[in-house]
């Protein structure tokens, strides 16, 4: 006789409960995707325009800024890994972490020491369990990130980047606000550039004492559509100038080279770039967070749909088994009764 009826009924009940929960999570994730997707799209003009402006400015000859120029012999590279806070989203985190490991291995092979920055509880837990040192970690906003979260993380990265690979971040002391907080090895400018940078950018408190970096990379899951997300790693600083395609250049109809030659900057390019750089990194990190949030919801929706389907299959099979067991029980009872009646009749 198969498993007893009582046990089977209990399993059916609990599997149904699980299906209900996963179904609810699937619906929540599905509604989040739509919202997250709308945010990704709404935020796109800003980062597109920003990249356009920076590209233009760079072409117009502001090339010696640390944001734009790769440093000679980079010794350390920052890697920002964007994971989720909660699990139950299939391979989402595993994929990001695998890519992050690959990027870091590659950087080490190139002689650059990777410096880890992690967003999301799952990534933090992963690296902590492996006793890997993290330069920065932020959690609690992976599903609905807002700009302040991105700004906070990005400012730490900016501080490390401006400091440069061979030094640690120093905060300007309180009594002189014009301290050299932003200037450092690799900025390649005199004290004047340093003080203006410090005036427009003060490193956040938790950046103090961190090792500087010469490059910044970000590993996140890019959201292309509900059906397709892909783990992506990008270098965000120094800026890799992307050749603009003529298709997305709507505003300038005539020859772009000619147009850019006559650009005017206010204030002068070096100072302007000092002001734009923190904002640029914030925009890039924010865009990555929004993409990651949409991807996370999509991954969770898929995982929960699979879980619900599996649970329903299981319920179906268990119900068959339970029916069989019930039939067997009834048959047995009848044959017992018949047997008993026959015995009495003789």
């Amino acid at each position: 006789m198969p498993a007893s009826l009582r046990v089977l009924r209990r399993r059916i009940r609990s599997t149904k409960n699980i299906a209900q929960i996963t179904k609810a999570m699937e619906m929540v994730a599905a509604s989040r995707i739509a919202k997250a997707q709308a945010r990704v799209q709404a935020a796109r003009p800003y980062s597109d325009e920003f990249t356009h402006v920076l590209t233009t400015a760079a072409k117009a000859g502001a090339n010696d800024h640390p944001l734009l120029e790769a440093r000679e012999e980079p010794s350390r590279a920052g890697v920002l890994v964007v994971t989720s806070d909660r699990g139950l989203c299939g391979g989402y985190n595993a994929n990001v972490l695998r890519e992050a490991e690959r990027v870091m291995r590659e950087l080490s092979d190139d002689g650059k020491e990777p410096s880890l920055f992690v967003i999301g509880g799952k990534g933090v837990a992963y690296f902590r369990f492996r006793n890997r040192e993290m330069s920065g970690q932020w959690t609690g906003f992976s599903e609905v990130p807002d700009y302040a979260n991105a700004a906070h993380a990005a400012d730490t990265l900016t501080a490390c980047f401006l400091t440069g690979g061979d030094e640690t971040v120093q905060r300007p002391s309180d009594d002189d606000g014009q301290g050299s907080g932003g200037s450092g090895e690799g900025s390649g400018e005199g004290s004047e550039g340093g003080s203006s940078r410090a005036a427009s950018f003060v490193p956040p408190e938790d950046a103090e004492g961190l090792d500087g970096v010469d490059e910044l990379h970000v590993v996140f899951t890019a959201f292309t559509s509900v059906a397709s997300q892909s783990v992506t790693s990008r270098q965000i600083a120094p800026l890799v100038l992307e050749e603009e395609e003529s298709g997305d250049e709507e505003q300038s109809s005539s020859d772009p080279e000619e147009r850019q030659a006559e650009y005017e900057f206010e204030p002068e390019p070096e100072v302007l770039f000092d002001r734009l750089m923190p904002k640029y990194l914030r925009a890039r990190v924010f865009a990555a967070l929004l993409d990651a949030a949409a991807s996370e919801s999509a991954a969770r929706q898929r995982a929960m749909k699979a879980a619900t389907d599996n649970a329903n299959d299981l319920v179906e099979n268990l119900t068959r088994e339970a029916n069989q067991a019930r039939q067997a029980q009834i048959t047995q009872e009848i044959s017992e009764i018949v047997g008993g009646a026959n015995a009495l009749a003789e």
Partner: protein
Amino acid sequence: MAEMEVAIVGVEKRLWSGQANFVSARTVEGDIGLLPGHQPMIAALDEAGVVRIDPTDGEPFHAAVFGGFLSVTAESVTVLAELAELANEIDVAAARDELQRAEGGGDDHDDTAAAAARARARLRAAGENPDR
């Protein structure tokens, strides 16, 4: 009359876009007025400032812009801002409250000064006098 394509783009969304005859803003170096056909330029705006736009069709309006910058080409002006609010979205009473609180003093000098500047920009954009 000549016109240009103007857009105010915030981090989270594009706030406004359309045709306009005139844009004025305050950069870190001073006030600037932009007419169609201006020389291409990129300028950093005041940390908390007001931008005025005269659309081709409709009344001129203001917007409070925080942490922004301008990108100008001959036929377009784009204001990029970390945070921007159109005048009709601004809660005047809340801004006034905030200004009072910020100017009432606090522990952290830098923060309250920035908050006061933000509140002032909001009030000016909404057409109120911050000092009244």
